[in-house]
């Protein structure tokens, strides 16, 4: 083939590929006005442990919607996965507060008709229209469950229970620490620094100026030398604790529950500095192929029973205020243990994940946005 023919071919293929990429229409569907019969399938993108057989099987039997699951280990992965294939690859997603706004502004999800959500009136007042799933009075999601990121340790290796996040920055534990491989982990270090270095003036761990970020990155780079492995999936951390490669780390209550069930002696706590945490919402794809099944699913997981099952298996707090009795029925005392009885005070003690943006809460525009956080995290990991 001569040079000219070659370049023509190259151009032709290029433009063919680009046109197919560009010409995908981005029409959002209008929300349903009534829930019809299920379409037979439901594609779910969710956190590990959020589509458990314990409540998926009954759902499939009653609605006929076959559930296809894709699990993710971070909000970034969730956002990337839902954007693939123009958003046609999934129907519902369990997005945390640091992903939900990106999904709304990226037009990945559609408004939810809350009149069709049976349990909506029972949702905690704080979570009916929170800023992370409701924009300009339009609901884009239904709040599901929420909880703290905890400090977890192996009680056989660390016999005195730690009470501060300082242990995961402590040289005494070099080589046995594990933390999540996730840019939002920067907020955990920022929260810790807001207590140990008040002169930095960190008031909100998600609103950091360049100077504050530099201090956080410096701390995290020191931590890297002590870290055995950054975990990407909850199951990775479970493996690290099982094999004895990690003795202490940042975790979700889910890993602690899973490890205890497997007979590994671990304990978890919210240290004195407080904790970051997540508040998740179920959201529906703007290009959902099975909208009826999507609404049926949200209604199913919002029932007090599933809310209680989810809360106990993951170690978190339900959004549905009616779930308390169900939790105690499944495991006596669990309603109080997971703060489902006195949720407002506990709720305000957690610094919930949110997407960092340029605008700081104080009206300034000097804060770093999420792409700067992602770059900073790459610098930390190297």
């Amino acid at each position, binding site marked *: 083939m001569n040079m000219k023919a070659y370049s023509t071919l190259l151009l032709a293929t*290029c433009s063919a590929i680009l046109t197919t990429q560009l010409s995908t229409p981005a029409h959002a569907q209008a929300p349903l006005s009534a829930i019809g019969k299920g379409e037979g399938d439901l594609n779910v993108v969710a956190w590990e442990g959020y589509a458990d057989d314990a409540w998926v099987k009954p759902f499939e039997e009653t609605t006929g919607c076959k559930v296809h699951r894709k699990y993710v280990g971070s909000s970034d992965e969730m956002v990337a996965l839902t954007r693939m294939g123009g958003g046609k690859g999934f129907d519902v997603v369990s997005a945390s507060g640091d992903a939900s706004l990106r999904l709304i502004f990226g037009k990945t999800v559609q408004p939810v008709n809350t009149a069709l959500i049976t349990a909506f009136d029972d949702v905690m007042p704080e979570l009916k229209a929170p800023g992370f799933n409701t924009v300009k009075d339009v609901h884009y999601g239904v709040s599901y469950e929420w909880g703290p990121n905890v400090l977890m340790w192996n009680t056989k290796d660390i016999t005195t229970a730690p009470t501060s996040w300082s242990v995961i920055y402590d040289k005494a534990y070099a*080589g046995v620490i594990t933390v999540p491989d996730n840019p939002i982990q920067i907020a955990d270090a920022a929260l810790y620094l807001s207590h140990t270095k008040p002169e930095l003036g960190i008031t909100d761990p998600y609103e950091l100026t360049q100077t504050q970020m530099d201090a956080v990155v410096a701390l995290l780079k020191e931590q890297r030398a002590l870290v055995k492995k950054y975990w990407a999936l909850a199951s990775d951390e479970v493996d690290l604790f099982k094999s004895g490669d990690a003795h202490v780390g940042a975790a979700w209550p889910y890993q602690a529950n899973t490890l205890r069930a497997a007979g590994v002696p671990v304990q978890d706590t919210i240290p004195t500095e407080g904790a970051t945490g997540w508040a998740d919402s179920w959201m529906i794809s703007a290009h959902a192929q099975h909208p009826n099944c999507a609404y049926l699913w949200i209604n199913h997981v919002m029932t007090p029973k599933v809310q209680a099952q989810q809360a106990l298996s993951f170690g978190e707090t339900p959004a549905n205020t009616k779930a308390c009795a169900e939790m105690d029925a499944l495991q006596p005392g669990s309603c109080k243990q997971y703060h489902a009885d006195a949720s407002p005070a506990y709720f305000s003690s957690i610094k919930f994940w949110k997407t960092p943006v340029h605008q700081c809460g104080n009206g300034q525009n000097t804060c770093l*946005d999420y792409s700067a956080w992602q770059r900073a995290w790459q610098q930390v990991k190297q």
Partner: protein
Amino acid sequence: MTPGRKLLGHIALLVPPFGWLGVFYLGSLSVLLLSAFWQVDAMSGEIVRDWTWENFRILFSDTTYTVIARRTTGIAILVTITDIILAWPLAWVIARKVGPRLKLTLLVLVALPLWSSMLARIYAWRLILGHDGVLNWGLRLVGLPDQNVAFTNIALWIVFSYLWLPFMLMPMVAALERIPASLLDAAGDQGATPWQVFRTVVFPLAIPGMAAGSVFTFAVTQGDYVAPMLVGGAGSEFIGNVVYSNVGVSGNVPFAAAFSLILLAMVAAYMLLARRFGAFDAQ
């Protein structure tokens, strides 16, 4: 058959593979090339098609990426040297010291691991090197202290050297086989010591084999991201991991494309170098 029809037949044979390569290989490469000069909007995740060198500016100005590129290349070089050293004795034995039956058996044994999944083989190393793994179990048996090899760059070096050893061995066997015995006899007759024979006759003639093997050990190690993910630890990121996390996690395809282009250029430069040493000469 007339010459004209014969030509048509040849073209017909060539169109499917060339069409395939043209559309799927060159096409996707071109899109990659183009998107490296674009940006992505952090909030909506949409690609902004404004031409910019920004991705490359970040790659060259931020030391993070220089460190990662150096680590990737450094480990690839180390793996290549290790595999050359490990392959020499075995290749020599297979090529020149054993009969045809044993030779076949040995070659099959070398190739056997390639029939199992690469993931399974990497996971096996996790079980060997892990804190409660076979290695520490063995060390404890003989009264030696535990080693913390799992999730380090040393683990990466071991696993890569293991994974690509067969690819170094095969071309070296081929190269050593083709050295005529008469050359070795002649060198001996002229009074060369065994070491001199190796240095002046065998080694130079084996260079094309080592070069061909290094194309696998070096280039494939450079492009890998699976092993660093599974057996690497904190500070084990490869170029491939940055590309992977920018595509699959951050959704920043343009930045990933820019780093891939640099990787591509590095591998292409190595291929040219390997060709000078006869890596692609028909053996």
